[in-house]
């Protein structure tokens, strides 16, 4: 249940990102949560079609 809530709200995005970077690029630097969330809103800013909702 808790897992489901975290996934639906996309709160788990950061954990997913960390797991991904550690697994695929072990030497790369992992962003802090603050920087990661900033980068995410920045991406939405650059392409507003991401996460667009409908009528």
């Amino acid at each position, binding site marked *: 249940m808790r897992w489901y809530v975290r996934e639906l709200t996309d*709160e788990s*995005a950061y954990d997913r990102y960390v797991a*991904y970077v550690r697994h*695929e690029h072990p030497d790369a630097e992992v962003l802090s949560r603050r920087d990661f969330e900033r980068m995410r*809103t920045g991406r939405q800013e650059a392409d*507003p079609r991401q996460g667009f909702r*409908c*009528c």
Partner: protein
Amino acid sequence: MRTANPRTIVIWTLVALVGAAGWTVLALSRGEEVSAAWMVAAALGSYAIAYRFYAKFIAYKVLKVDRTRATPAERLNNGIDFHPTDRRVLLGHHFAAIAGAGPLVGPVLAAQMGYLPGTIWIIVGVIFAGAVQDMVVLFFSTRRDGRSLGQMAREEIGPFGGAAALLATFVIMIILLGVLALVIVNALAQSPWGTFSIAMTIPIALLMGFYLRVLRPGRVAEVSLIGVGLLLFALVAGRWVAESSWADAFTLAPSTLVVWMVAYGFIASILPVWMLLAPRDYLSTFMKIGTIVLLALGVVIALPTLKMDAVTDFASRGDGPVFAGSLFPFVFITIACGALSGFHALISSGTTPKMIQKETQIRVIGYGSMLMESSVAVMALVAASIIDPGLYFAMNAPAGVIGDTVQNASQVVGSWGYQISPEALARAAENVEESSLLSRTGGAPTLAIGVSEIFSEVTGGSLRAFWYHFAIMFEALFILTALDAGTRVGRFMLQDILGNVYRPFRNVSWKPGLVITSAVVCGLWGYFLWVGVHEPLGGINQLFPIFGISNQLLAAVALAVCTTLLVKSGRLKWAWITGVPLAWDATVTLTASWQKVFSSDPKVGFFKQRQVFQDAIDRGEVLPPAKTMDDMHTVVTNSTVDGVLSAFLALLVVVVIVDATRVCVRHVRRPALSTLSEAPYVESKIIAPAGLIATKEEKEEESRAVVSAGTPSEAGTQPPAGPQ
């Protein structure tokens, strides 16, 4: 060929019987009041059969979804926007993205023709057109790394058809925003309670944005709980404000609200996403899902009776006060999103295909979500049909027709055959603590009355006014979010188009370009909003058909792209799967456009309307419902704009369809000439169930994979512990 076991046969026979019983009662009962339970039975029975048989057939026989083929989420996983997402989670995300105001407003307006035509189209339309479109677009976009509809049109049809599709999308976006804003203005005008609680959502969202940015980044669940709590408090406080001396400050005229709305849209769209848009989006999604679930429970628990006629006289006469035109084609145009929505093609191509785990899940995500959306439309139709038909027409007819006193309204509505006393009209407004409910057009207030009726049957009548404003707030919340997000998307398209003329516009973060394009987009939809509010003939009456037509035309574009792709990918035999819905949708929509442009009935045809009013101006006469010569000139200008726009949109879509046909014919004649830009096959390593509930074989397969690999696949792709 496998044989079905007896249990399956018995279960599906029962489901078919439930659906058939619902349809029979709805179709045959005349004169007596029918329970909404039959509508629910007809809908759920039909959905279940369509999902089990038709959707499965399309997925496995037509599209041939391949469970061994890796999706873009698996191949291009970057841990951010491309990542394999659990199907139950993605179903939630996808549904939240496609469900909006459309399926709630359209059916309410369509109830003017009775509940039966609307019910039939919502259910039949979704099964054979809407859900098919969503699913097929999702499939083809998934095979193309999540390409957008516009990109697919350009690559698969050609630059000309692609450009027409892009331009049509932009125009449609502008009309959508104008009409949605109009719905909200009509709901908030002269309502201090509603206006106050909606205004409070802005500081609440700012607070949430600050919390997420600075205090505790990424903690969405807790901040959303805080936000919803504050929102409910704002709702309760709205009543205190409405009863206090502040009430005047929040009692705004429609034209004042227009100014506020456009200013909000402009400022919100140039502020950073984290400040307003992102937190608002969380709030509105929670409210939306919560209210839809509550409404479904309310309908099932209260099982109200339908008071509206099954088919009203307006269906054949075509002179209804809510929107003009006869049943064919206008009921289909008006319902729009709940049955077939072109906008969904924008979600099904783009975000969702980048997150889908397995091709086999396209059925549950694409087809399944759309069935859920359709059930929302059915609930909206129930909500509109359970209120007194007299009240329904008094709320939805333009002020120019029924006047602005309860006596006058009661008389006019009575002349249509729906008796309601002036006292009953006044009491209905008093019950929800509004000054008046007359001509509250746009669907949102009517839906709110229906919702408050259903909820107060469960919770008791003392909360009626609260539930009314709760429903208004819930719609206003996500329409305001849509204004912000839609302005950004419109701006993005405009930047792209202008970038061809003046390079710096291409750079989306170039500030002057950003401000200019935002202002242009807000100005454009603001124009339609202004026109809608000041239209003597009734803004919703004039503009909603254009909105419906534009949405259905976008669906025609999507279906044309799908059909072309089916033909080009060697599925000519199955091209009818989207070809028939395309033919139907094109017929309906182009007929509607034709009538809107050329009809000799001044209520329907924009140019005839223009001529009638222009002739009267030349004679120096003022025709009702216009009151002054200025009104007359307004009508002439608006009819001209609306008429030209309808013709222009229809023309763009004809261009796309003709171009798509050309490509299909060329492919059939000389297949060697066409190219197909499908991403190459890569074997999938993820093992995941196709449907919502894993079958026995799928569970076994999953556990075998875990044993042989030692560890589960990629971190984050599999839930450590599922909710089951």
